């Protein structure tokens, strides 16, 4: 296969990327450590920056240390009780975030800065998460001038633990920086992305300090690159040491070593030595370069040129003082040359005997330009030398200070060696390597400070592709569904799981409705049988509740289609321990294929498209496999109770936690690490492969907060001109105020009441390009009161009846087709009929209000029972759903929704407004879930990081419809609820949830969000699509 250099390949994506992370498995006691051997640059300042994806959370009492200073004071930066702690030099200095961080599906960026000399005591310690400075609880301030322990001379510095045995971190880390002597800000390490996310950026210009470091976990050696040009090669024709020597034929051959300050000998000490053989064929031609640090015509620092003699030429750092010494080696004879700088005095030894002492002072090292080191070619006139070299070594010390016997064995690498080139290989080999430097190691410091760490209980297989710039699907330890679910025991970065009961199950952090996806499964349990499973998260309720999944373990797959078991799938071959099972999920054509060790079962052909050749399960067996219907994610379950346990690979680790040798097979986007090659067009489940959302969320929905002034004011920061603004006073009792552009700004509705619209002119006075303007009404702008406004973009224009598909009842609308939102106005007819909604898909939630008369807020929601078109809910009440014909028992279509003659929806002489929503991947979700009555509550997958969630219990009365948002609660736990059905002030006591990178999760048992067996509907809008979201 022909391969082009990468310069010919277009870049896959712009921006800085982090290619790998390091997995810390706390079961293995994984960590890195080193002991500081020097005093820090400045002990009263440091910065710690790390990207973290959490693994298991375990109990709230476990500590997970990110950075530890093992000393008597035991300073540390850690997760404890799911909060971030900075503990400094003794028990009196604890700084603790108010926020909890227990999102295991995406990455956090954590920056801790310390400057004990900061003039503002409260600023001496700062913690940033995802670029946002955190509110900290502390009982004290750091006294001015207090030294930190993390960079202290003699201190053991640990990454990922307290010491070898305690407080091990679990999860992934990437791009770890410790800066000694400077307190930087979070934006020195990250920046805001197009979707409002916080993302890493290329870090430049940092001063690391003596005890600073940068670990990128790339596992790369730290050595000089050596590039061969022409026919430079190893030759066995001549050799001094080993079987070969370096041969240059005098016609375009040379080696290049990139310029590096190590080679300048700025301390005034250093040694350049090599064995040299000049063939008698060489003729006296000027400037045939043997060794030079100058590529052009400028002044060299050091060069060796073969002329009529053999010239060793040096220049001092000023570049003007040139020393030349000419010697005359014998032809065809191996000679050892050593140029030694000893405290600024340069001497040339030939075969161990001092031959020349240079006159100039080289205390500041050699003159240097930015040119590379060349071997075998001169700089000024590009003449090439013909001859042999062997054992080239450059050292940062004066190796020889008196007469010596040159080594006739291979030069050794030691701490003083800067460059070492051996030749002991086959004839014609063109591989030249630097045998000095640092071998590849997960703890290698890339800062240039040489503060390399020692890995403990970490192997090469712990280097992972999962990174802040390409987040991979794993099992989700907080992915809990109904109340009989019991979580498995996870490890290895949430890729390995064991279950704790037959009803237990685990599922992934990513779920898809369309596209083609591939993943692999392996069991490390000898004698056990791995199991493939995948859940439809839209309908699967967990355990023995409503089941909706596919499970394959040899024989007939177990298939539950939204609660109904099917036995129609063909049998699959048996598989056994250590087999690698593959899953190809074609959600464009509705088929699931399975493989064993790279062979597709039933002669399956995942690339067969609509013909679904040999598919294990198709959409005719599980209807929710059809494109765009289900929401499928990798899963593990084992109803037999044998609990074999599996290890999942969604493309981040084909070593299966070191049980196999990684094979490095990639998908069609050149992403991933699979054991077997994925079928054509099937991709790894990772954020780089997720489709871009149709809309940027903040351009279609936004929340703004303000304080009232009892006068007029313009509220800005919405980011667009809203068509629907929903305002609620937060700090005391006031009605909700809903204003839309279709009815006009002087027309407010109130979800907490059945009243007709209020036509007050002192509320919203205009919709503006970046928000709206207010008058002085206390419902929107009372001095001393606080307010929230939720804003949606429709079309900024109202379309007439000829501009979109009409139903039986004429309607006008303002619509945002891409964002799945329309505002529809119609006049009642008292005749059953249909109403055009203007969208491209059937609305999943419709809120109708008769705005010219008192009446209820009518709600249709697609998740309200299995026959939602026969149900009726009220937004203004705490009622449960009722079986009713108000929607004419007819589900909405892609063009219209249906109503009967109920007064709240269709009475002659009344006008109506309808707010219509359907889900848009990565932006909005209309869904439902079942409560589990547990503080470790039901997890709800949305596919985005929510900015807004409205929840309503549907199967029982007595619960309001709380609204949560990420503007009022900037961090978890999210506790500030406003109920759409009442006018009371913001509550913080009940119905708490966590907003997460890919959904939300109930965090208590309040009936409004999480009663056991409670059925809930919700409407959610995104802050950031999961493709781009940070952990929250």
């Amino acid at each position, binding site marked *: 296969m022909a391969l082009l250099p990468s310069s010919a390949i277009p870049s896959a994506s712009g921006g800085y990327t982090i290619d790998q992370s390091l997995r810390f498995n706390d079961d293995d006691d994984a960590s890195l450590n080193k002991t500081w051997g020097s005093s820090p640059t400045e002990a009263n300042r440091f910065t710690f920056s790390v990207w973290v994806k959490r693994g298991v959370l375990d109990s709230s009492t476990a500590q997970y240390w990110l950075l530890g200073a093992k000393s008597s004071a035991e300073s540390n930066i850690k997760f404890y009780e799911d909060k971030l702690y900075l503990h400094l030099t003794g028990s009196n200095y604890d700084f603790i975030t108010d926020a909890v961080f227990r999102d295991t599906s995406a990455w956090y960026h954590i920056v801790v800065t310390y400057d004990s000399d900061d003039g503002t005591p409260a600023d001496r310690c700062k913690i940033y998460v995802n670029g946002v400075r955190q509110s900290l609880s502390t009982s004290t301030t750091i006294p001015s001038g207090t030294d930190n322990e993390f960079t202290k001379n003699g201190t053991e510095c640990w990454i990922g633990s307290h010491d070898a045995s305690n407080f091990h971190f679990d999860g992934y880390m990437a791009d770890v920086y410790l800066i000694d002597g400077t307190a930087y800000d979070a934006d020195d390490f990250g920046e805001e992305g197009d979707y409002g996310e916080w993302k890493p950026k290329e870090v430049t210009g940092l001063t690391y300090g003596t005890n600073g470091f940068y670990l990128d976990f790339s596992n790369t*050696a730290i050595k000089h690159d050596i590039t061969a040009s022409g026919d430079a090669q190893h030759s066995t024709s001549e050799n001094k040491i080993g079987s070969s020597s370096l041969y240059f034929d005098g016609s375009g051959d040379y080696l290049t070593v990139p310029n590096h300050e190590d080679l300048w000998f700025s301390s005034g000490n250093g040694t350049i030595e090599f064995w040299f053989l000049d063939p008698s064929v060489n003729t006296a031609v000027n400037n045939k370069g043997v060794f030079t640090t100058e590529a052009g015509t400028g002044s060299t620092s050091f060069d060796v040129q073969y002329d009529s003699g053999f010239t060793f030429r040096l220049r001092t750092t000023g570049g003007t003082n040139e020393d030349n010494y000419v010697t005359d080696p014998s032809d065809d004879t191996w000679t050892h040359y050593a140029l030694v700088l000893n405290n600024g005095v340069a001497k040339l030894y030939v075969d161990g005997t001092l031959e020349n002492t240079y006159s100039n002072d080289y205390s500041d090292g050699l003159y240097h330009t930015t040119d590379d080191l060349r071997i075998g070619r001169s700089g000024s006139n590009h003449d090439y030398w013909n001859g042999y070299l062997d054992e080239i070594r450059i050292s940062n010390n004066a190796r020889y200070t008196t007469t010596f016997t040159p080594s006739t064995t291979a030069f050794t690498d030691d701490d003083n060696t800067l460059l070492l080139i051996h030749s002991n290989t086959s004839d014609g080999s063109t591989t030249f*390597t630097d045998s000095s430097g640092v071998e590849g*190691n997960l703890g290698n410091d890339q800062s240039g400070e040489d503060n390399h760490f020692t890995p403990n209980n970490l192997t090469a297989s712990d280097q992972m592709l999962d990174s802040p710039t390409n987040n991979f699907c794993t099992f989700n330890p907080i992915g809990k569904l109904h109340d009989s679910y019991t979580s498995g025991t996870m490890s290895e970065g949430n890729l390995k799981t064991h279950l704790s009961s037959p009803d237990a199950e685990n599922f992934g952090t990513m779920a898809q409705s369309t596209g083609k996806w591939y993943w692999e499964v392996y069991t490390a349990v000898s004698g056990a049988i791995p199991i493939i499973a995948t859940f439809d998260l839209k309908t699967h309720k967990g355990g023995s509740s409503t089941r909706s999944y596919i499970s394959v373990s040899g024989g007939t797959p177990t298939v539950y289609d939204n609660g109904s078991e099917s036995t129609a799938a063909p049998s699959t071959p048996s598989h056994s321990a250590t087999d690698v099972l593959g899953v190809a999920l074609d959600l464009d054509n509705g088929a699931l294929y399975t493989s064993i060790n790279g062979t597709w079962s039933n002669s399956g052909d995942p690339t067969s498209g609509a013909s679904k050749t040999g598919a294990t399960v198709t959409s005719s067996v599980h209807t929710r496999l059809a494109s765009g219907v289900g929401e499928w994610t990798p899963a593990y379950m084992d109803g037999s109770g044998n609990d074999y346990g599996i290890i999942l690979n969604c493309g981040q680790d084909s070593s299966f936690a070191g049980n196999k040798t990684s094979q490095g097979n990639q998908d069609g986007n050149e992403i991933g690490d699979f054991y077997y090659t994925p079928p054509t067009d099937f991709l790894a489940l990772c954020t780089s492969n997720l489709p871009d959302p149709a809309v940027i969320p903040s351009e279609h929905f936004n929340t703004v907060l303000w304080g009232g002034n009892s006068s007029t004011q313009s509220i800005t920061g919405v980011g667009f001109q809203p068509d629907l603004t929903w305002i609620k006073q937060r700090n005391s009792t006031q009605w909700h105020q809903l204003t839309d552009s279709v009815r006009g700004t002087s027309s407010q509705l109130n979800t907490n009441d059945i009243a007709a619209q209020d036509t007050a002119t002192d509320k919203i006075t205009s919709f503006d390009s970046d928000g709206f303007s207010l008058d002085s009404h206390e419902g929107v702008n009372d001095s001393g009161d606080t307010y929230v406004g939720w804003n949606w973009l429709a079309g900024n224009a109202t379309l007439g009846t000829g501009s979109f598909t009409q139903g039986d009842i004429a309607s006008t609308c303002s619509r945002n087709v891409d964002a799945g939102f329309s505002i529809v106005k119609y006049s009642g007819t008292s005749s059953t009929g249909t109403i055009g909604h203007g969208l491209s898909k059937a609305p999943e939630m419709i809120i109708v209000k008769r705005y010219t008369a008192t009446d209820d807020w009518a709600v249709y929601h697609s998740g309200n029972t299995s026959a939602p078109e026969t149900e009726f809910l009220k937004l203004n009440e705490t009622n449960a759903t009722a079986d009713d014909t108000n929607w004419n028992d007819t589900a909405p279509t892609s063009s219209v929704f249906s109503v009967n003659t109920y007064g709240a929806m269709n009475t002659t002489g009344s006008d109506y407004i309808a707010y219509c929503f359907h889900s848009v991947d990565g932006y909005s979700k209309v869904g439902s879930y079942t409560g589990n009555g547990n503080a470790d509550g039901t997890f709800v997958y949305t596919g985005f990081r929510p900015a807004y969630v409205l929840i309503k219990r549907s199967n029982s009365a007595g619960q309001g419809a709380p609204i949560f948002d990420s503007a009022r609660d900037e961090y978890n736990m999210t506790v500030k609820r406003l109920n759409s059905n009442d006018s009371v002030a913001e509550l913080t006591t009940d119905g708490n949830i966590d907003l997460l990178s890919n959904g939300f999760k109930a965090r208590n048992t309040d009936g409004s969000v999480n009663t056991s067996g409670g059925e809930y509907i919700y409407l959610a809008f995104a802050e950031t699509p999961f493709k781009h979201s940070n952990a929250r």
Partner: protein
Amino acid sequence: MWYYNATIIKTPKSLTVNGVTYPPAVFRNADLLSSLGVVPYREERVDQRYYWTGALTVDTSGDEAIGTYTQTDRDVDKLKEGMLDTINSQVASKQGSIDWYWARASKGGKAVPADIQTYADTIYTEQATKESEVAALTDLAGIIEYENRAYTETRKVKHSAEDGTETYGPETDTHNREINMLQHWTANPTDEVDPAFVSLVAD
């Protein structure tokens, strides 16, 4: 995995050799990789449950590079502490799943079924047995054997009819299994019965 220039390459990435940068696809061309001096790499696995993993040594003398980590025995007493924790958590989970029978009975509901009572008693008995067995372990080899005890499992072969009906046997298969005795308990009588199971016997 591959090895080049003292660097372990776990997954394909751009590779610069002799000043030429090759795209990740180079890792799909074994001949080209070989000509560039990139060799396959594998590691001798260390079971980190029982050994501390330390420094890596790479043997590059053969056609493939082989990585070997130093390994040091983990502390037996600390491992035993973890084993006892596992036993306790297993018992807590298993007893917790049936506690509601007693809660119901205490509130005047149905009495605890006899098989559930027997199961609860058995779990406590097995807990005591396992704790004694763990206490008696004196070295790492014993711990490894206890957590990986050799068994032979016999299972009926599953048959699937065209209508999806599944039947088992009479043919059987036997498999060698390694059972972690910390996880090996009497089954809850309410658990779903495994229709293929015949026997599981210690070797």
